[in-house]
């Protein structure tokens, strides 16, 4: 493979990794603090993408996308709050089985609602930053560079939140001992809602950022959920760094899988092979901790 092509597919892989990281980080944050795998995480991502399409197209080009970003993140955050209060609060500390089934049921409701409203057609939205850069014989869209930048910014933001703020400290404390945290004067009930809202908003942010780069449709919830699971499992559930590394691996594999028609059909399959290999060697993922 010549260097120009290598760079092309690398940038493609990085922009895949960008939105996947944002989604997977939300999933991992929620799992780390609340010990719940949110099967409806992909639905929140899909809802945000549809909201972006609707709002951005109504507001028109230019400002439209940025307005949609605010609306979509607010909507997913709000849905997250309602979901946490109505469903999640009843299933904390229960068996994984119950948690998986309950959030799975929620995802069915979300997916059904989205399909009932938007039907099965594909929708698109124009990127807020158009244009492309020519380099070494290939053209790169400015928006895919923007996606990579946005993901780096969000990664820094999440890191700062977790290790530089009182909220992050409280979230980490809740991971190890929620009872003691409650008796130390922190409202853990509300903290859990806040964590879930942040997770939901990250899913939403992922959906907003991905919307201009893909066709928005009614099955993008399971598509992204499956990849986010693969990332979390490769990187280790509950680890934000793991989400980053996992997203890079998965993003690159998908991008390079598209290099030729032979591997094209099985690009996704490679992701799962890597996932199986990682778990066979490290059953808790690269950066995960054994669960007892």
């Amino acid at each position: 493979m010549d260097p120009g092509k290598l760079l092309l597919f690398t940038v493609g892989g990085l922009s895949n990794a960008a939105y996947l990281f944002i989604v997977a980080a939300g999933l991992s944050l929620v799992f780390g603090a609340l010990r719940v795998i949110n099967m409806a995480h992909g639905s929140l991502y899909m809802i945000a993408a549809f909201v972006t399409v609707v709002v951005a197209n109504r507001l028109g080009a230019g400002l439209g996308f940025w307005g949609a970003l605010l609306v979509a993140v607010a909507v997913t955050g709000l849905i997250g709050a309602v979901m946490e209060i109505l469903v999640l609060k009843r299933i904390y500390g229960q068996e994984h089985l119950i948690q998986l089934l309950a959030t799975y049921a929620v995802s069915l409701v979300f997916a059904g609602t989205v399909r009932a409203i938007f039907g099965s057609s594909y929708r698109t939205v124009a990127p807020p930053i158009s244009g492309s850069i020519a380099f070494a014989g290939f053209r790169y869209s400015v928006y895919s560079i923007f996606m990579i930048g946005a993901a780096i910014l969000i990664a820094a933001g999440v890191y700062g939140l977790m290790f530089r703020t009182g909220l992050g400290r409280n979230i980490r404390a809740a991971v190890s001992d929620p009872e003691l945290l409650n008796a130390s004067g922190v409202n853990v009930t509300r903290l859990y809602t806040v964590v879930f809202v942040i997770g939901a908003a990250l899913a939403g942010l992922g959906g907003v950022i991905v919307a201009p780069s893909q066709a928005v449709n009614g099955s993008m919830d399971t598509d992204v959920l499956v990849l986010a699971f693969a990332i979390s499992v490769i990187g280790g559930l509950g680890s934000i760094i793991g989400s980053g590394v996992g997203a890079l691996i998965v993003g690159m594999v998908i991008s390079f899988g598209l290099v030729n028609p032979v591997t094209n059909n099985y690009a996704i399959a490679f992701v799962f092979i890597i996932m199986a290999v990682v778990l066979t060697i490290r059953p808790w993922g690269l950066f995960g901790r054994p669960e007892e």
Partner: protein
Amino acid sequence: MRQMLPSTRADRVRWVIAALIVVFALAVPPLANLQESINPDSSAKFQIFLGTSALVLALWSVSYNLMLGYTGMVSFAHAAYYGVGAYTVALLFKRYHVPVLEGLLLAPLIAALVGLVTGWIALRAVRLYFSLLTLAISQLLYSIAYGWYAFTGGDNGIHGIELPDRLSDYGALYYFVGAVVALCLGLMFILVRSPFGAALAAIRENRERARSVGINVKAYELAVFTAASAFAGVAGGLFAIFQQEAYPEQLYWTANAQPVVVALLGGIGSFLGPAVGAFIYVFLDHVITSSSQLKSYFDVTLGAIVLAVVLIVPGGFSSAPDLAVRIYRRFRPEAEAALQPAESMGDAIRLADADRGIAAAAIAAVPVRTGAVLLEVAGLSRHFGGLRAVQDVNLVVHEGDRYAIIGPNGAGKSTLFNLISGRLKPTSGRVTFDGRNITGRPPHVIARAGIGRAFQITSIFPKLTVIQNLQYAMLANRGRTVRPYGIANRAYREEAMELLAAVGLDGLAELPAGRLSHGDQRAIELAISLALGSRMILLDEPTAGMSAYETQKAMELVRRIAGERGLTLLFCEHDMEVVFGTAKTVTVMHQGRVLVQGTPEEVRRNPEVQQVYLGELETEPEVVSR
């Protein structure tokens, strides 16, 4: 006198319901024909077709419940094995012209083979990670069915499967499918009642405990995963026959929603629950899709139903008999009073009877050879990152010894126990038991080699009855759980009862263990460790949470049984009275190392031990009294 418990009455209701289901299933074709003759608008063919799909769904869901309800595994790959079954029949017919009935015989074999290989990979991980790994496997199989266009027909799937003439009639096809489903359900029913099924229940209730009574958890999980795959393969093969097609979406991971929802609707706690759920599901599906308003909200309705079941009635439809019995008894208060089971007061250990314990057949009866070395730990270390939890520990435990390990929290006692019992693998060093090197062997092997264990934090099988806790532990430890036939609940009843009497629990034998009070659960914990027929028992703070009197009583029981029956004890304990009153040998651990070992008296007088552990407190009263 055998006490009539609420569960047995509900069981009778269940048998009646099961019989009704069979009658109903047999009557579907005549009823459909009858309806058509009364109301020419309804199509008997369509009704029978729906009935056939309910039968297939019932088989698929019951096979899913082998994992979900009986073993506690959540798999997202079950649809894939169902799909493999369907593709086996379809591809054999299309590509190799194998008749469908012969294809149906091969379907479970191929599905089982795929299940075995993929299950082996998935079971490298546990619980949640296992679930997510099955998801990956499912998507992998899907992408093969979807992407291998030349062989599988890609997204078009395979159509135009032809049936032999005998099965071309809808009614005949229905009874044929019904017979195959009934045969498979029968086999699965035998499986879940057998000692093998007991091992599955033990794993579901408490993996760690299951391992420590001698169950090779991974092997059993793989076995049930493979068996469930085989039955899913039959269901998929039947699907290909009655629908005459196979397509890749059958394998997609979201297709698992169907058996999950069906099992939940029917109730994962009962054998036929998912089968009942299948008929309800097919009926609901029919109602929703034939209504133009509800049709576009199929997923929403389904999601709402699942959510409601999970949050409100986790027992599903099959908890109805229990509910009915409860309601019935509400109107007959005198019946309720008569049926009220004994209450767990937490005083079991006060009723303990050491003499009955000494006589119990369940306890190992290997005579003590004079003071031979039973357990030898040499240079054992375990590091967690930079933390040296256990560092170069040497111990020799002789037969018949009562050996105590003491030290503050964090001294490495629990880690040492976990290293000996196989829960953790040592970084270096060697453990020899009865002349056999058991270093780093898995817990079930060590348990079967003769080291029983009681945990510091009570570790029992909460939803099993008290007596089942012991019966299943005994089945496991004596290697009987490999048998996939026979009835587990009839095995070792007397032996278990004897032991329950010894720890004062005989009045509570038929209650779910999790309903007992904390103190009584400690007694179960103790009884399980005795039931294992082990030569050596590891007791991790056996009297934690007991009162002084109970402590004294429990230790007397343990001491006498150990003495009379030649058991060797290795225990750790914070209560110095228990330690110095029971132990023949004491080891003091400090910061992962052995500080001192010797007789209780030597240890008590050791100045170093006084300095780092005992301090002045323990010796103060003695100084005063002298």
